[in-house]
Structure formats: C-alpha cells, structure tokens
C-alpha cells in the first residue's frame, strides 16, 4: 500500500505530482499518494523521451490502471535526463511506492525558483477552497 504522507523533502503541485531536488542539481519527479490512490494498480505508463524539454503545468505523460487514465503534469520546467527504468518495466511501482521506487523521471531544471511556488509537503493535499477550519 502507498504511504499516506508526503516525505518532508518533497514539494507538491496541485496536479498531484511531486518534485525533489537532488544533490547534483537535478530534480526527481513522481506522482503523489493521492494520485496513486485514485489510480489503484498502474498497468501502463507513457513517459517522454530523454532530452525532451518540459514546462511546468503541462502534461508530460500518462499512467493507466484498470479503470483510470491519469495525466501526469510536470510540477516544474526542465529537460528530461532520465526515465526511471524500474517503473518503465513495472508500472505498478508508480502506484505501490510513489515516493521511492516509483519515481518517474529526473529533470535538469530550467528555473530552480519554480520549486518555491510548489506546495510544501506538510500542506499537501491542499485544502479545497471554501473549506474552513
């Protein structure tokens, strides 16, 4: 079963993807436990090729389960350095272990300041608008 809390070293987007800055200056991208729960067991994954440039907020690929097709939206802009080979072989990792073995891709960020605009781990998932307390 997927974790139900975001690790503290991640930042999340409202589109249920996460980003984690790596020591080499790149950033790792995946989907959150909320997306994983919506999907159930992933069975198919479509990711961009290495070298492709992605823009924050735009669809970069998709994950399918038996009943759901989920569009993965990149939380930040950048160039694709690597697709997780493990998840390409076993798409179910994206939903069974979305914060660790199921990461999707690694990017060279175009603008590291974009991370500041994302939601902190402790504030995710964002509370729906209008919900008080």
């Amino acid at each position, binding site marked *: *079963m997927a974790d139900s809390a975001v690790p503290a070293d991640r930042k999340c987007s409202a589109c249920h993807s996460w980003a984690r800055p790596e020591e080499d200056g790149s950033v790792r991208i995946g989907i959150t436990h909320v997306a994983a729960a919506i999907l*159930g067991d992933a*069975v*198919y994954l479509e990711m961009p090729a290495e070298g492709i440039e992605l823009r924050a907020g735009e669809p970069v690929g998709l994950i*399918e389960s*038996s*009943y759901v097709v989920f569009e993965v939206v990149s939380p930040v802009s950048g160039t694709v350095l690597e697709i997780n080979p493990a998840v390409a072989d076993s798409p*179910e990792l994206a939903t069974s272990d979305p914060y660790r073995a199921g990461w999707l891709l690694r990017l060279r960020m175009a603008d590291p300041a974009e991370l500041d605009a994302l939601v902190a781990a402790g504030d995710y998932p964002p509370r729906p608008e209008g919900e008080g307390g």
Partner: protein
Amino acid sequence: MEQLKETPLVGRHRALGALMAPFGGWDMPIQYEGILAEHRACREKAALFDICHMGEFRYKGDLVAGGLEDVFTLSVASIPVGRSRYGFLLNDRGGIVDDLIVFRIAGDEAMIVVNAATAPNDFSVIASRLNGAAVFEDISNATGKLDLQGPMSRDVLLSLLGREVAAIPYFRFIETDVLGSRAIISRTGYTGELGYEIFLPSDKVDELWSTLLTYPSVKPAGLGARDLLRLEVGYSLYGSDLDETITPLEAGLDAFVNFDKKFIGKEALLAQKPKALSRAKVAFKVGSRRSPRHHYEIFADDERVGSVTSGAFSPMLGCGIGIGLVNPASASPGTPLSVRHGNVTLEATACTLPFYAGGSLRG
C-alpha cells in the same frame, strides 16, 4: 437516482477498506487490496467474491407443461438433475435479454441464475412466457451467493465441508449442509479457474464469508479483478459484450443455442443464420500494455470496422486485450487491427479465445 441496493456483506467490505462503486443498481466492492493482487490471488491460490447481487429464480412444476422448456435457448428438461447449463433468454428479434445458468434441482424443479441489473426484467419476461401451471418465484432476496475461485478453492471447501465437495465435476452441483443450512455448491464460475459458486440463505452469508476468510489461502476479491479474470478467458459480460441488440450468433456463442427445440427468438436467429452476419465478435491483443476500452473504435486497413466492447491490461499476457464487434471480414485471427480513441492509437492483432488458457478450471 434510485437508492443503491446492498448485499448482506456491505459492512464487511467497508471494514476491509474496499473501494465501493455502483454496479447493476448495487453498491459493490470493486477492489480491496488492489485489482492486480486480487487477480493474482485467484490465479494462484483462492479468491472469495461477494456475488449476492445476482438474481435467482425458482421454478417448481412440470418443466414442459408449465412452459419453461420453451423459454431459453437451452433445453432445461434435458439437463440431468444435479447439473447446470449456460444459455440465453432472447427477445423475438433474437437479441439477448440476458445470459444465465439453469440448475436442474429436481425432476420438477429448476433454479435460474441471472445478472443483477437485468433480474427484474428477466423475471417479468420469463413469467410472461409461462402459463401459470407451475410456481415461479424470485428468490433473489432470500438467496446469498459467494464465489470461491482459484486452484486452492477445492482444498478449502474440502477442509470446511468434507469429501463430498472434492468429487463435484465441472458444471455439476450438490445440495449439502453448510453452517446448518441447505446450500448448493456448484462447480462453476467466471474466472477460468477451478472454483465454486455457493448459494445459501442470505442470513448465512456473513458467517460463511468470515469462515472462508480464516483460511490463509483465501483473499477477498472485488468486481475489478472479476472483470479482468473473465476477460482473460474470453467470457462475455452482459451490458458490455451482450445486450438486447446483439444475437448469440453475432456474439460467437452459437454453441449455447439449441436449434432442435422451440424458443422465442429462434425464427430471427434462423433468418440470420444462413446469411453473412453483418458483425461478428473479434478478440484481439494489443502490441503494448495499454488497455483498449469500451467504445474505442476498431479499424482495419484504415477503415472503421467496429468497436471495442470489453478491454483491459492482462497481467497473464503482459499486454492489452480486448473483445469487440466488427465486420466479420476483420474478425479472423491474425488480422492486423488498430484501436483508436481521440489521438490514441493502439496497434492490435485479432486472435483466438481464450487469451489465457493456463487456468485450473478443469483441474
């Protein structure tokens, strides 16, 4: 919207954390742990399904004199007592009102097991074709149904109920005592595995469910896994692959139509039989892990030839699989097809059924 109906196990499902969703007017468990894990449990060990939503009718009286013999595409009177048979209830155009199994309980008694969503209509259609000389009643509310399916299902029932169960051949059943009540244990199912359908009083379902789940080899499984399991072995799903506009000939299910007897819809089928069908069932494998989905369009040589009626990713085959209705020329195994939806194109190849033949069904 009408209130969803609940099986006696709805509280158990919620306690197990099941994802619940409407199916055929019922609030049903789609998955517990996950569709893939539940699918694997059924293929490798044993899976337990709550199937209390399905309908059961009881007919008591002379099968021929009361009119039942002429209702379905199968001959009820020729089923030996203790066996069951699959067939159809048709409309006068030959369209499938429902697919069902008839159990020959006694010389003058039969139980008819039908789909949940169609049960109320089935009951009135069947009743309208009987002449009132026999008792015909809807026993769905009083009857619970649990399916135990998978290669280890026999060992589990053997341990729970004794040796009598181990000897039941495929499409036969026994009536026996289960937890102090009369139950029917039928060697049938919808998964392609060795398995049993257990009919028992609905007030005993909870106890049997809990008892079966105490066996380490048994996992609860939802309708999501059930749909995947049935598609891998090529079984049709009413409402997706079959409906009132589709005849058994188009659905490739001629084997379950007995033309040597009377039934409503026979004339329409006889008229359709000698002609080239305008559409036929096709089974196909996708060249990737991507799932074809209901209503996706099927193309051959860039021409639209039909549409998908069921599709999924098959864990056993490692690729997308589907069935659909197409122009018969495109249904031959080996035909290259492309399955399209919006800007999605899945390359596929027509194939034979079943997709997966390695099950323990006849084990």
